[in-house]
């Protein structure tokens, strides 16, 4: 700030004009005095040869300094001349590593999950088709998921937009960013409505009476629902319980605690439930993830049944194959195809009729009543519980997954260098991140599930769960980076931080792998790492939403010294 105009030319008691001090001359020469003082200096210099000479000398000194600094007295070092080329090469190398690791990760995913599932589906005789053809060409199978996928796509886009906002946060004011996120959420909520003339129902209880017909898809989010009428499209339900006693001409996609089907469903059932009971008719296939799945004695499923459950009971009619990864499987009805099951136990009652082969892999041989009618004897394979830690295969995949996580960390650090740095710094504080991590680890999923109770909360809840799951994956990376910093010290830049992340992550993996053998200690160590890392991420996020420092507050240390007397500095430039 400019000081008040100070008489630059104090007069001596005898009326003699004193000379300008050097500071005033320098500020004048550098055009840093305000107009009034500059005019006084100019007027004085007109009459004072000494001050005029000093001003000229200062200006010449400035020019000499500039000339001396600008002269190219030294050639550019060859190291710098090569920098661009080396940078380009290292860039290519990084992308090579990224694509290589990504391909490895995809291969790991495929061989670990997709391929085994595909083989099991084929072995279970799903129409003799591969999983790919099942998904692509069987329209009924695919159709039921389209709306769900669209919803996930929208949520994914909103999530990506959210990350985009984080990345470009410097260019957006916080209010603008919030407005954009809210707008994005509103768009996400609004999109499904015009897309397919879907009817939406929400509230505590919903009932579709027997004589009522919904001529489109219906999307229900209520505590309880009862469908006695007809739905000509697909049924989507998110809630506590639903009883379908009417007629669904499309598919039923259900997320609920309890589902009871006593009516008719012309399409498929996809359910994520606690209990699924079918006493009516399902014309196509059933895929279910739940605790107990029951086809009652009066129930009919004309297609196949795929279950991931604790208990599966087939007392009624199953038209085609059963593929199950269940704890207990009980068959007392008729199965038109074969059975391939894996679990603890299987029992086949005297009333059972199975037209195809039965393969069971479990702890004990299947208990088969002599009265049961089987096409062939049950082929039993004892489930091997050999410790995976004793196999080289386990360690190979451990290395592959470590590489995949390091790749993920690399991308994360390059996309959000500042935020990850903040999270790592937060992680170095131990107590606070661990405490907050406990809260976030347990609290966020609970809050997300509670949010899903309301229709508006479903996208928010799913998004929150997604972010929570992402944070879990990031937690180990953050903890690894903290460990790396302990060992190698503070990094100079983002690549230094990535190097520390790599080293620390590998060390964490090496230490954690043997710990995981000891069940309780391993579980506690795993939880500790997750909570520590998640707490650090949460702390970094929290610091982001804190009010920023006022712009006029100095960032750096200010020397507490005053200016010498008669020193006038900081004036504005004269026009």
């Amino acid at each position, binding site marked *: *700030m400019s*000081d008040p105009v100070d008489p630059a030319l104090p007069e001596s008691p005898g009326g003699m004009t004193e*000379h*300008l*001090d*050097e*500071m005033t001359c*320098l*500020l004048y020469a*550098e055009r*840093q005095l305000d107009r009034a003082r500059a005019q006084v200096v100019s007027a004085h210099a007109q009459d004072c040869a*000494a*001050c005029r*000479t*000093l001003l*000229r*000398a200062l200006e*010449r*000194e*400035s020019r*000499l*300094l*500039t*000339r*001396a*600094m*600008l*002269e*190219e*007295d*030294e050639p*550019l*070092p060859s*190291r*710098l001349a090569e*920098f*661009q080329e080396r*940078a*380009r090469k290292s860039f290519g190398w990084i992308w090579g590593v990224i694509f290589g690791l990504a391909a490895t990760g995809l291969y790991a995913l495929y061989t670990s999950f997709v391929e085994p599932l595909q083989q099991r589906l084929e072995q279970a005789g799903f129409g003799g088709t591969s999983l790919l053809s099942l998904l692509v060409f069987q329209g009924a199978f695919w159709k039921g998921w389209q709306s769900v996928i669209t919803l996930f796509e929208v949520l994914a886009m909103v999530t990506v937009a959210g990350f985009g906002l984080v990345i*470009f946060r*410097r260019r957006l004011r916080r209010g603008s960013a919030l407005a954009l996120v809210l707008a994005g959420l509103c768009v996400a909520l609004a999109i499904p409505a015009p897309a397919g003339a879907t009817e939406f129902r929400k509230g505590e209880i919903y009932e579709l009476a027997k004589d009522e017909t919904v001529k489109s898809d219906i999307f229900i989010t209520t505590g309880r629902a009862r469908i006695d009428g007809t739905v000509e499209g697909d049924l989507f339900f998110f809630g506590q319980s639903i009883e379908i006693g009417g007629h669904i001409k499309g598919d039923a996609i259900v997320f609920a605690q309890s589902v009871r089907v006593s009516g008719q469903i012309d399409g498929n059932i996809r359910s994520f439930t606690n209990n699924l009971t079918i006493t009516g008719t399902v014309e196509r296939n059933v895929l279910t993830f739940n605790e107990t799945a029951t086809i009652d004695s009066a129930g009919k499923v004309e297609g196949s049944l795929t279950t991931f459950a604790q208990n599966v009971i087939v007392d009624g009619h199953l038209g085609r194959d059963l593929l199950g990864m269940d704890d207990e499987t009980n068959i007392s009805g008729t199965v038109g195809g074969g059975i391939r099951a894996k679990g603890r136990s299987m029992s086949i009652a005297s009333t059972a009729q199975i037209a195809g082969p039965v393969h069971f892999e479990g702890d004990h041989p299947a208990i088969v009543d002599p009265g049961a009618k089987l096409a062939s004897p049950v082929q039993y394979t004892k489930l091997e519980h050999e410790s995976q830690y004793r196999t080289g295969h386990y360690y190979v995949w451990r290395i592959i997954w470590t590489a995949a996580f390091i790749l993920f960390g690399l991308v994360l650090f*390059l996309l959000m*260098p500042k935020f990850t740095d903040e999270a790592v710094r937060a992680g170095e504080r131990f107590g606070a991140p661990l405490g907050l991590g406990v809260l976030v680890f347990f609290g966020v999923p609970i809050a997300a599930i509670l949010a899903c109770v309301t229709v508006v909360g479903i996208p928010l809840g799913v998004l929150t769960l997604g972010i929570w799951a992402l944070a879990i994956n990031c937690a180990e990376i953050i903890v690894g980076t903290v460990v790396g910093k302990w060992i190698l010290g503070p990094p*100079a*830049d*983002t*690549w230094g931080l990535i190097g520390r992340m790599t080293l620390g992550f590998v060390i964490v993996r090496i230490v954690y792998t043997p710990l995981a053998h000891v069940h309780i200690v391993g579980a506690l160590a795993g939880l500790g790492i997750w909570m520590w890392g998640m707490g650090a991420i949460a702390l970094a996020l929290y610091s982001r939403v804190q009010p920023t420092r006022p712009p006029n507050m*100095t*960032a*750096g*240390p*200010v*020397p507490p*010294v005053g*200016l*010498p007397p*008669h*020193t006038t*500095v*900081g004036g504005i430039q004269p026009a």
Partner: protein
Amino acid sequence: MNVPGKTETTEAVARARAGDAEAWGEIYREMGPAIFRFCRRALPTREDAEDATMEIFSKLWEGKLSQYDESRSFSAWLYRVAANHCWDILRRRKIRQDKETEDVENVPLEHPDPNQLDRMIEQKTSEEVRHALNKLGARARMALVMRYYSDMSYDEIADALGVRRAFVGVVLLRARHELRQALEGKSALAAGGTL
């Protein structure tokens, strides 16, 4: 004032931000030598300057460029980045000493002998000035380089050095006195004589 790298590379910067690798090359060719010389003047050794130059461009590459406001001069912004980086290096090495700040209170403000100063400036060559610059304290040298090499404003210098804007003139004047002392080895000139 002829400022190195003043030629704007706006288009290249825009392309670099969009991920064009060739644009990085253009920016580097345009600004690399100027930034190296800035670092060379500001830091004690040639090796330090080389390292600093590469670190500055690495920073840009890793995302710092996203912070550049395209409505302003790119070269000015880049010099500010370089100044902050060099000052961080010096600060980490504890070359900057609090004593410097304290001593500024005692900076003499009387006239040096204008004629003597004028003669001295006339006699000195650029090379001698560069040698003398190497003998200065970190803050003094940094201030002179920011002002007379990259033409940074008093506000920018204040921001980079972490001092009040009103204090920048004092820092610069003291730096000149140190420089004169290094050039002549005469305390009278450095401390300022009387007419």
